[in-house]
């Protein structure tokens, strides 16, 4: 032990004890809790014929649910990029009363159970709710329509953009902005040419995270959506419906499609994060 300490080599050194024990336990628990259960989904899919699988994942009702789920998730993530970006900017750059409380409350959608968020939003946005009653005369119906899905998914994705953009904004160097200003750039030009390019990768990462979260969301949406087949039925709900009809194979087939999409999203997010780290490093040097 003393020998390996004396030479702080770059070669893998296992000075600390417990490698076998901790790795063994980690792999065992991971396999038991995550890998075996997840593999059940793929095993079950193999009980379907290819034609059966294609039928199950492309029926008109499920296609309508994909359009709603991915469309609303995309829109909600975009809304969060715009407003979450503004919230992050305001929290980092400006001083105003109540800032710390607001900063803490941004994480509420992470902490508040989705069912609670669901019933609260439904009550607020229904025709006689606190917010819905002002929208109703304008002819805007939110609760029990696809618009309600958008509201719920915006709530769910709210913290992602704020929390990915905030640290990047905190790290930006004001000196660069000063330099831009002293070279004659207007504030708007400085924002477009100096600040925005620095924050862009973080915005994109936040967008992808919010989008990924929204596509799988269930609890907050089922209350507000109204759940009409072909109109306001999201894909996760359709999986539940299939299960309630004991169509396990059909439910699993759709689940596989959702899983593949979320793995692709996970991959994209990892690439984005690597890219944004690289950008950060280049920016600093």
């Amino acid at each position, binding site marked *: 032990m003393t020998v390996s*300490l004396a030479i702080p080599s770059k070669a*893998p050194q*296992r000075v*600390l*004890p*417990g*490698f076998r024990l*901790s*790795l063994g336990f*980690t*792999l065992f*628990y*991971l396999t038991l809790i*995550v890998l075996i259960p997840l593999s*059940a989904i793929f095993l079950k899919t193999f009980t379907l014929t290819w034609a059966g699988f294609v039928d199950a994942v492309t029926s008109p009702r499920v296609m309508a649910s994909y359009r709603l789920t991915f469309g609303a998730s995309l829109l909600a993530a975009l809304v969060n990029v715009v*407003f979450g970006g*503004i*919230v992050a*900017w305001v*929290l980092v750059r*400006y001083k105003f009363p109540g*800032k710390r409380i607001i900063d*803490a*409350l941004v994480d*509420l959608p*992470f902490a*508040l*159970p*989705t*069912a*609670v968020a669901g*019933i*609260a939003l439904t*009550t607020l946005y229904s025709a006689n709710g*606190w*917010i819905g009653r002002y929208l109703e005369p304008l002819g805007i119906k939110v609760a029990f329509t696809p618009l309600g899905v958008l509201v719920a998914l915006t709530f769910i994705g*709210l913290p992602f953009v704020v929390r990915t953009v905030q640290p990047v904004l*905190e*790290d930006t*160097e*004001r000196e660069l*902005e000063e330099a831009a*200003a*002293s070279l004659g750039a207007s*504030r708007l030009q400085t924002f477009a040419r100096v600040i925005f390019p620095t924050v862009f990768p973080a915005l994109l990462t936040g967008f992808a995270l919010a989008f990924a979260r929204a*596509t*799988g*969301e*269930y*609890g907050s949406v089922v209350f507000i959506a109204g759940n009409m087949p072909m109109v306001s039925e999201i894909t*996760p*709900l359709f*999986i539940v419906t299939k*299960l309630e009809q004991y169509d*396990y194979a059909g439910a699993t087939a759709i*689940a596989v499609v959702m899983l593949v999409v*979320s*793995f692709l*999203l*996970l991959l994209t997010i990892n690439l984005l994060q690597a890219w944004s780290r690289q950008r950060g490093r280049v920016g600093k040097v």
Partner: protein
Amino acid sequence: MAGSGKSDMSAVISTVAAVDVTPVSAPRGEPAYAPAATLEPLWVRALLILIAFAFLMLFLFVPLIAVFYEGLRKGWDVYISAIVEPDAWSAIKLTLLTALIAVPLNLVFGVAAAWTIAKFEFRGKNVLLTLIDLPFSVSPVISGLIYVLLFGLQGYFGPWLRAHDIKILFAVPGIVLATVFVTFPFVARELIPLMQSQGSEEEEAALVLGASGWRTFWHVTLPNIKWGLLYGVILCNARAMGEFGAVSVVSGHIRGETNTIPLQVEILYNEFNIVGAFAVASLLASLALVTLAIKSFIEWRLHHQLTVHQAVYELNHQPH
């Protein structure tokens, strides 16, 4: 700079690194000064703050207030009686039991995984990291579905379980399993970056001084990671108590037996018992607020701790 034993090099590096480290240790948020050239006009600032406020108001504050308002609408007596009503009460007990099993399990796993990943170099580390994150990217409904496929009557273990008269699906064990799956990464996720940033110089020193492995863990590692650990635990707990989708699929919705608090909220709401639903929901909303309060407090502690460690770490591990 406790563990810097790299003499000549680190002297050079530390002067370089010192410049790099300062922004990290600067107070969060406001810069020390804000020259007018990099400040927007007053009306722009006011407008942006107003937009941010309106957005958060509409999507965060009003829904939160509505939960408590609707729950208390008919007074405290109705509120209290909605919570101590037998079905709600049994839902509360089941939720506590579930969290009491799921959180410690994932806590032990989180510590083991973080120790493995942060303290050792081995092949396939990135794959392991991705696999640990998997449950986060799976829809809650699918998390529930996998247990139906495993333990349901038509499931892989269904016939065997039935022959031995063991109930997992639509019973308490299924709810616990689904919750463990959903909250699987929380503790590990918080601990891994924290322990990676801390390095292992302190543990190595303890071992050289003759402490055993466990002793080193208890007296050196654990005190160093306690805030991160607590952070992971409260987030894990919040999710364990609030999980809806996965639990809803495996629970079977048997009143007074397999309903957790979120499922009880759903049932009451669908029966148009709005006050009852919001009264029970307000328990979960309070839990969320307490979680956020503790979280903010720990972030403040952790930020301080992380800053110190990061400074030391960056001094010792500057790329050459």
